[in-house]
């Protein structure tokens, strides 16, 4: 997992550097700092630093060591549910998305506690609506169908 994350950052850094060199100029026509001045320096430093980090980890033999996949399972489930919540919020709005998300999360992680799960699933959207919608008069995502 560490290797994949390092490679992900390295690839993003390389793309950033490529764009900084291809799309943005280092100096303006007047000889002042151009839009690419900072990004080019940042990009090159980032790629070099990331390569150094990978080499050091290879030397210390820590690049491939790490947690078992099973350790990531619960975090991965929560991440998946959270991203689905984001999509549901955009499409269906908070009235449906919040209870669906809370209910699904509690069903998975707090199994067997049906009364607590039901109470929390109902109470949270009400509190959120009261806090953000009524008390703070803030915008709430109503979804595409509203």
């Amino acid at each position, binding site marked *: *997992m*560490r290797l994949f*994350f*390092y490679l992900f*950052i390295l690839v993003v*850094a390389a793309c*950033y550097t490529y764009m900084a060199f291809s*799309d*943005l100029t280092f100096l*303006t026509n007047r*000889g*002042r*700092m*151009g*839009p690419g001045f*900072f*990004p080019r320096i*940042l*990009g090159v*430093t*980032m790629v070099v*630093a*990331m390569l*150094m*980090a990978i080499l*050091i980890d290879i030397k210390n033999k820590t690049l491939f060591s790490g*947690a078992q996949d099973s*350790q*990531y399972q*619960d*975090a991965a489930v*929560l*991440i998946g549910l*959270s*991203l689905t*919540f*984001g999509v549901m*919020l*955009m499409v269906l709005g*908070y009235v449906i998305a*919040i209870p669906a*998300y*809370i209910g699904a*999360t*509690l069903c998975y*992680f*707090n199994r067997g506690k049906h009364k*607590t799960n039901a109470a*929390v699933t109902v109470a*949270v959207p009400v509190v*959120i609506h009261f*806090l*953000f919608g009524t*008390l*703070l*008069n*803030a*915008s*709430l*995502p109503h979804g595409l169908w509203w």
Partner: protein
Amino acid sequence: MEIFDNLLMGLSIAITPVNLLYLLLGATIGMVIGSIPGFGPSAGIAILLPVTFSMDPIGAVMMLAAIYYGAMYGGTITAILLNTPGDSTTVASTFDGFPLAQQGRAGPALVMQACASFTGGTIGVILITLLAPMFAMVTRSFGPPEFFLLCLMGILTLVALMSGNWILGLVSALIGFALGTVGVDMETGHQRFTFGSTELIGGIHFIPVAIGLFGIGELFHAFYSGAHKSGTGGIVQYQNEERFWPTSKDLRESKFTMPRNAILGFCIGLIPGAGATIASLMAYSLEKSLSSTPKKFGQGEMRGLTAPESANNAASSGAMVPLLTLGIPGSASTAVLLAAFIMWGLRPGPLLMAENPQFAWGLISSMYLGNMALLAISIFAIPLFVYIIKAPYRILAPLVLVVCVMGTFSVNASMIEVFIMLGAGVIGFLMKRFGFSPAAVVLALVLGPMAEESLRQTLIISRGSFDIFFLRPSSVYIMVFFVAVIFSGILLNAYRKRTNIQGAQA
């Protein structure tokens, strides 16, 4: 005398029923958030920032500042009762706090940590009152070269003082700087890394990234480490207390420890990038080296708890000085506070105290009141916090995530920002997992655009020559100070490694 007049004016602004209510609310919420393992002041302020939108600016900033130092108080509760620091700033408090709780002295330990936090916080605010106006006077002569150097110093100090892999710290800072370059270039009007998206023309907003990295990232990491599986009820060391109040011996032993380390903590907090974690670890080392019985440290020595506590609270006050007088945040928490100030139309900097004295002195005065309120809350509400710590993480987590998502959406009514926040949460989790520094990302995201702008102005003034940094006395002083800080950081890391090796061998 002018200072006292200003302080009285500040008190008259702070002491209104509504502002006092915000202050108490902020202090309590801060303590509650601080007492949840993994959630520090940065996460607390970031998550609750959108909630303050409908408030009066002074009341809102007072509340956010109260959350900041309230979380500093609250973080120690889990350090003592669970041996789990609420934030990195309270790591040193676990060394003797948890052994004290295991000995059945959790009550005296919690009361003494509250007293130490109060002493540290109050001495810190007194020093802000005395030094901030002087700092503001000095920094009025600062120009773009000095601001550029201070921005650079803030981020590089953070990287140099990192206890882990400094290269990963550097990469984290560079990621933050890179995120800061997204949007329209202010000088040329050229779009950078926007991929044609109109939402990105204004740049990547700081709030969703901060909420994602600190709030959501911590949440995912807690699930990864299994914090949600077992309730903490069986682990919490708060039962069968022999006595609640500390003994006169405890108070006598710590009477010089607290003020001494408060002053040390404040001085470290002043340095951009150094922060409360370094302050608390240095205070612990100092106290241990001054003690005639250093072997007692680590086995339940009260001074081993009060020293880091007074230092980290004083450091959080110290970090407010560069924020208020220079507009440069010295830590991730103050970076989030800066975002709040800017959101309210307040631009911290050398002229803040002259142009907006009501705000500056109102905030400073509120910190005196906040510390007093927190002393009372943290002593008398201990059973409540024990109850909160015992609440299962698996129920708290989805609630926190919903509040984060709704809070982020309410800022600009933008779903893109919600997805940026969730993405930052995943990245924040992986960064924390593999030893990167989310704090460096956030600090660099704030300081990056400031650094780029001030470097640009500097090079315009100097007509493209970098000699200007060596020709201005203030710049030279900053560079010399900067080199000294980096050098002491390297020595500190070497000392840490040596003590770790010795500890392992023992």
